[in-house]
């Protein structure tokens, strides 16, 4: 049996293809994001599919670190706040509090997994740069993140 750290080292799991976002950014992206992108993910009332898609995005097939994209554990280290789902009434204050913790410059991207739900809506979010609807695949989410960071590195 191989030693555990060497297991699978020769397997090439990362995929080389184009990752495209279903929608373009809504405004110009700050140039400061071109070298790397740190993302803080907040779930504010999603049906959980988006949490699963973010976990899938972290899988070796997408290998997001090769593009300089990292998920951070604190909003204070983030360039992008990725909001999953439409906020429940209880999650509105924590969402706004999280926004207030983001360092300048920052952008906010939202993914609305239930666009037909008219009961809940997003508050006015500053620097809201991208809005996806439905349950996008990890490839589409990665496409969106690449649009926000380094378009020239879209294919690798």
């Amino acid at each position, binding site marked *: 049996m191989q030693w555990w750290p060497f297991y699978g080292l020769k397997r090439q799991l990362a995929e080389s293809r184009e990752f495209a976002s279903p929608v373009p950014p809504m405004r110009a992206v700050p140039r400061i994001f071109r070298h790397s992108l740190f993302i803080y993910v907040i779930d504010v009332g999603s*049906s959980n599919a988006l949490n699963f898609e973010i976990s899938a995005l972290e*899988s070796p097939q997408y290998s997001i670190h090769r593009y300089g994209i990292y998920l951070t554990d604190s909003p204070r280290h983030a360039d992008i706040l990725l909001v999953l789902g439409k906020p429940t009434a209880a999650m509105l204050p924590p969402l706004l509090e999280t926004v207030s913790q983001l360092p300048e410059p920052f952008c906010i991207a939202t993914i609305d997994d239930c666009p037909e739900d008219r009961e809940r809506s997003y508050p006015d979010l500053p620097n809201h740069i991208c809005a996806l609807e439905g349950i996008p695949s990890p490839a589409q989410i990665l496409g969106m993140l690449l649009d926000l960071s380094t378009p020239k590195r879209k294919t690798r």
Partner: protein
Amino acid sequence: MKLLIGVIPPNEERAERLFVLEEGKAVLLKNVDDARVYPNYALLRDRPARINDRPVSGSGVFDFRYGPVTAGIREAGCFHLYTYGEKILRAGIDLSWKARGIEAAMLARTPDAALRLAETVCSNFAFSHSVAFSRAAESALGLVPDLAARKWRILLLEAERVTNHLYQLSRLSAAAAQKVLAAHLSALFEDALRLNACLGGSRYLMGINRLGAWERYPSAADSHTAIEGYILIARKFRQLYEHSLANYNYLDRLHAAGVLTPRQVEDFGLTGPTLRACGLDDQLNSGTEHLVNLPVITHNEGDALARMEIRAEELVNSCQYLADHLTTANTWRQGSGAEQQQPATEGEGCGVAHSPSGAVGYYLNIRDGLIREAAIFTPSYAGMHAVSTALEDLIFTDFPFVFDSFGVHFADAAR
């Protein structure tokens, strides 16, 4: 075995009902005197959104609030971990952050429209919710589902199980600091999601099941791709699993962590891997008309390791089951579908489905073709109570892998 999984509140027309699993089948009991038999009756009647919410105070006791915004859990939910040093004295759980009022949103909608809402309760269990809802609505309206639909439902419940078990095992191994294993399992998880899309057109098997019938049949080529995919997943997973069982660093973390006794799991009304990890069989396999009897895997230890082993063994079985039955599934096509039937416009019914984490139950009361009452009973609600109990007296570092070993979700519990 009889397990109470929900209490349907009384209204002006009828008394309280108990939603009971008897030999794996859903039964509505009208006699409220039966309530005394079930230790979890009061819990399920009240369904508090704050679980075990009794603060602990004293010198050196700290309320460590974990959530609703934290990278560790990621879902919108909150733990109140009352700690003394490293020791967790009590773990309160607040589900209210994720409550979306889906039962209320179903009211005054047609069953077809409400079916789509059922899929959004917890999308990683979307298919289980869809099947349980369909079974309840069909029972209420006197619809007999198409044979092909019944078979495809059973088959794709296993596909959902494969995806969820891979996710859970990947989370568990990451929480126990097994990064290599976690990365490989994460790759298999993404592969399983792609196979779902191949079979059902949706990575979460949404929109393919409808009342009495089936929406989308995969092509022969897609079925063939899926068969090869599940065989490959089973083979790779077995290799990884055997590898991980030789890693004592991993096993030591899970062994004797988050132990529940058979009495405790019965008292909470738990089903699924958590129940089977205590040596009990919820008989859901036999109660939900499987194509062949899948072996029911049980372990006796009741700890995080036993829950992990059950998921691992079920995963391999489900892959094998899918590979075996998808070869013949292309002959399962629409026969006498719901279109030929004249459904009733009113009635009440209940249905249950065997989700990856336990029994999902639906109670529906339909009048004039619209939903008048809806109650959703999920495995994660009872599971959250079990998590809260299991965390007591553990040390803080055990928290992530004990939580992940239960496979419970705030979206599922809060509805």
